[in-house]
């Protein structure tokens, strides 16, 4: 019931945005050349689908974002576990992360192309660099915050330190880790698009720059909508993974309401 309500609310919002857009376009407040109406944008998208460039690049971009996100999540969780196990690593890595975190992905792309070429390695490196922090920071904080009683219970049951880590602490930290992954999903999409824009070979980001430089305005807007859609899609996928992996938490918090 509530889900249906949520979906219908989303649909109404989408219609409102499209209507608002069309109204602005028709009002002539902005020259139609720079602000095409929805039909023109759909037409632009249809042309790109017909030539095959939109589906081909979309698959590339989504594939890169997903691969990078999965690797960044796994690596982030691994680092968080390491941080929890070793105070030395935890304190030391904090210095390193505070230096790496503010680096904008765009700045790294020109140099990374040298070392990694224009293939999937480049994109994975850039995504790892920017989206590892969500799962890592949330994970480290959540592992630290696991109630002492739960750990002591594990010890009383005769579990080894590794078993306590993987069977008590990690599952307890999972919900908060997923909050970090959701944030990382948005960041990984930003990283892919900007890397594609600057690497200039393929992907939605590259297509966006090429269409705009050749003043294909409806196509540029269509691609902008595609990147927004990708953001929503990736968020949905993360949510799905969260339900599968931490269903107990969703059920528990859902039941308490």
């Amino acid at each position, binding site marked *: 019931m509530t889900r249906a309500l949520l979906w219908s609310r*989303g649909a109404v*919002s*989408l219609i*409102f*945005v499209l209507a*608002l857009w069309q109204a602005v376009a028709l009002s002539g407040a902005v020259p139609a050349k*720079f602000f095409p109406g929805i039909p023109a944008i759909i037409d632009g998208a249809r042309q790109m689908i017909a030539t095959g460039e939109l589906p081909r690049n979309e698959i590339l971009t989504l594939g890169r974002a997903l691969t990078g996100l999965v690797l960044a999540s796994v690596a982030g969780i691994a680092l968080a576990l390491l941080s929890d196990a070793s*105070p*030395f*690593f*935890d*304190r*030391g*890595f*904090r*210095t*390193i992360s*505070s*230096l*790496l*975190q*503010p*680096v*904008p*992905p*765009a*700045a*790294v*792309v*020109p*140099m990374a*192309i*040298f*070392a990694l070429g224009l293939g999937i390695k480049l994109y994975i490196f850039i995504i790892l660099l920017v989206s590892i922090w969500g799962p890592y920071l949330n994970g480290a904080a959540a592992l630290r915050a696991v109630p002492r009683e739960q750990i002591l219970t594990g010890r009383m049951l005769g579990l080894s330190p590794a078993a306590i880590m993987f069977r008590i602490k990690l599952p307890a930290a999972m919900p908060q880790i997923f909050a970090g992954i959701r944030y990382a999903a*948005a960041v990984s*999409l*930003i990283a892919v*698009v*900007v890397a594609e*824009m*600057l690497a200039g070979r393929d992907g939605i*980001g590259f297509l*966006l*720059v090429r*269409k*705009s*430089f050749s*003043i294909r*305005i409806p196509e*540029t*807007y269509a*691609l*902008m909508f595609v*990147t*927004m859609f990708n*953001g*929503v899609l990736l*968020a949905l996928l993360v949510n799905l993974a969260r339900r599968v992996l931490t269903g107990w938490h969703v059920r528990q918090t859902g039941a308490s309401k």
Partner: protein
Amino acid sequence: MIPLRKPADYAPILMPLIVVAIWALAAASTSSPLFPGPAKVAQAIWHNFSTIMVQLGATLTRVVIGFAVAAAITVPLGIMLGRLRIIGQLFEPVMDMLATLPPPAIVPLVMLFAGTGDAAKITMIAFAAAIPLLMNTYEASKTQNEMANLVARSLRLSRFETMLRVDLPAALPMIATGVRMAVAAALLVSVTSEILLATDGIGVFLQRQQENFQIAGGLAGIFFISLTGLVVNTLILAFEKRWLFWHYRAQEDAK
């Protein structure tokens, strides 16, 4: 009594040193000009220091102007949208959609309208910074405290006064979060726009270093960008501690 030092206390310095040492060894063993060691990068920093400072200055000037424009528009707008429920709810989906747009995707779009000059770049930066600022201000002012509202009414504050003296301070902690996100987005868009639409700035510097195969110089540039981000983040955190202490104290009490 002197507290006993644990090995972990030295980690913040020791571990970066270990990483640098491994980097130096790896670079020495490959000895390729495309993989410079830390010594080469330090040399490049020394060599390019004045250029980097000038170019970073150009970048940061645009970031500051763009950010200021964005804050001046979005903070009042966000509070107003939060106050005027119906209009706010109407525009919520617009904001949600804009929030999913990767900030660098704005660059080619704004270029269509505004070209490639300074004004265009500042517009792109302002746009990128505006979205997290607007979202956070709006969210904060939407979920305002009922009690504070009643107090404002009993003090017979006008609508404008309420927004200025109740809503704005109450929204500041969340705005501060928005500021951190906005600064990151602004820096990212600034560098992207410079690499794509070259005139000046640290992005252009990085691009030139790449074109001339000066990896060490490029890494030096990246180092200074990261340092800038670190300084800005530290300043924002210090500001939050200094001026928003009441918020954190209230949180402590609530625990």
